């Protein structure tokens, strides 16, 4: 059962990922990315990451990607023009990506012992309570300094994108 679910959602994720890379229109790419995120959220659930799966939906799919779509719509950007000089890209790119994936897969196959298998429900520490405990005990410093990051992001968005009032 776990394998079937994995295969289904992995196929969706890869399909959407490919679509993201191959589509010429940013909106299509954005939605493909949402698809990837959604299927990844399901995979997180399979791996026992309930909290992170929901965070993935809320933060990534629900906020970040909406922002992307918003900007794409705002700029009303059309599809990519196909420049002649970039014709080599797919030809060079596809084998390159395949090669990288191949090497990566080989390494990973060596890395993970065959006994390591994923069973739904076997990992019990992904609930919000456990995560919160770990987060606020061991990772309290990174958590706190992340607030600076968010403040910067707010300031930056305002500085760069606000309308001149004068």
């Amino acid at each position, binding site marked *: 059962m776990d394998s079937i679910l994995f295969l289904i959602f992995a196929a969706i994720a890869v399909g959407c990922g490919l679509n993201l890379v191959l589509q010429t229109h940013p909106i299509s790419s954005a939605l493909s990315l949402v698809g990837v995120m959604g299927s990844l959220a399901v995979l997180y659930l399979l791996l026992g990451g309930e*909290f992170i799966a929901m965070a993935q*939906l809320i933060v990534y799919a629900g906020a970040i990607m*909406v*922002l992307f*779509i*918003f900007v794409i*719509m705002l700029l009303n950007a059309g599809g990519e023009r196909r420049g002649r000089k970039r014709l080599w890209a797919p030809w060079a790119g596809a084998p390159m990506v395949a090669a990288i994936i191949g090497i990566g897969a080989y390494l990973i196959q060596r890395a993970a012992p065959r006994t390591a298998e994923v069973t739904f429900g076997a990992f019990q520490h992904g*609930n*919000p309570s456990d995560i919160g405990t770990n987060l606020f005990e061991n990772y309290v410093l990174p958590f706190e300094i992340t607030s600076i990051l968010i403040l910067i992001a707010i300031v930056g968005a305002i500085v760069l994108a606000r309308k001149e009032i004068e």
Partner: protein
Amino acid sequence: MNFLILSLIKAAVVAFVLMTTLAYLQWIERKVIAHIQLRVGPRRVGPHGLLQPLADVIKLLTKEDLLPSHVNKVFYFLAPFIAVFFALIAISVIPFGTEVNLGPVHTAMQLTDLNIGVLFILGLSGMGVYGVALAGWASNNKYALLGGLRSSAQMISYELPTALAIAAPLLMLNTLSFRQLVEAQSGYYLGFIPRWTIFQGPVPQLVSFILFGIAAFAETNRVPFDLPEAENELVAGFHTEYSSMKFAAFFMAEYANMVTVSCVATLLFLGGWQPLWPAQYGSNFLPTAMFLAGAALCFYHGFHPARSFDRITLPAAGVVFLGIAVVFLIPPVAAVLLPLFWFAAKVGFILFVYIWVRGTLPRFRYDQLMRFAWTFMFPVAVANLFLTGLAVALS
């Protein structure tokens, strides 16, 4: 496999009830608005227009499905589907009552109890925006695009106060499962004040409730925040180019969202299916009393009819009410139905407020809407969350 069959049955029941509710919610809205505006509302189709929803459905189903030539076809088709899918799926984690223990059937009145139910709802509501935004963009129409833009900005902006408002009661109740949330709200102070979060200490969550309520209006694009589809500015906003079933899908999504939001408000703030006052003071008999009163009203008007057909319909309704009142007295059934009643009553009340507000308030201007979110809702929600957290930490 028992689990699977049971789940299927539950899903079917919930889907049926939800669909019916959605259909009739619209009828109720039209009726209530009509009465607010001193009109009668639909009354041609069926008694008191009761069959009006059915007629609407038939109309929408049979209408010609127009496909404007300039739209982006894939997303044009996809958008309503996305909208309605995420709106409907949210109901799956909402519990309607306690457990059902009828004969061999032992199950919770809920499709599934996730220990992260609240997050699930938040996540889905975040996804809902795609439907609207995409519809606006795919229509390739400036009004639609503006509607889509407005809605995505609005939803992102209001998601923040929503989440912050939700976080405050969660801090107190210390769980993310809806069922446990409601259970944590059981009991009474001094024997009669319910321990709902809007009343519960250390910080009664009245402010959160109001914030959540306001944000919920915005999240569901309802008056006074219905900017994305403001008819007099944007023709009809994001669904300008939609007709027939695809239009209906958006409509359904909007109402489903209303229902979901009302359910969440009930579960989080109003104690879910916990009765307003303890059973020892007779709260268990409230439904019986109400339905009896309804029956009495029906019979009275049936015997003093304003219109000729009331003579038949109202007494018939009275008989149904009587029957329901009796059902609430059968102990094993009552144990199932009573929580359901309380839950439905609270949700119904909130839905009524939705309609009431729509009948009463004018629409915001767009910049006011955004400023309201960032300069009022957001700071207040943060302050509220901070206060709550402080109180929880100190107590």
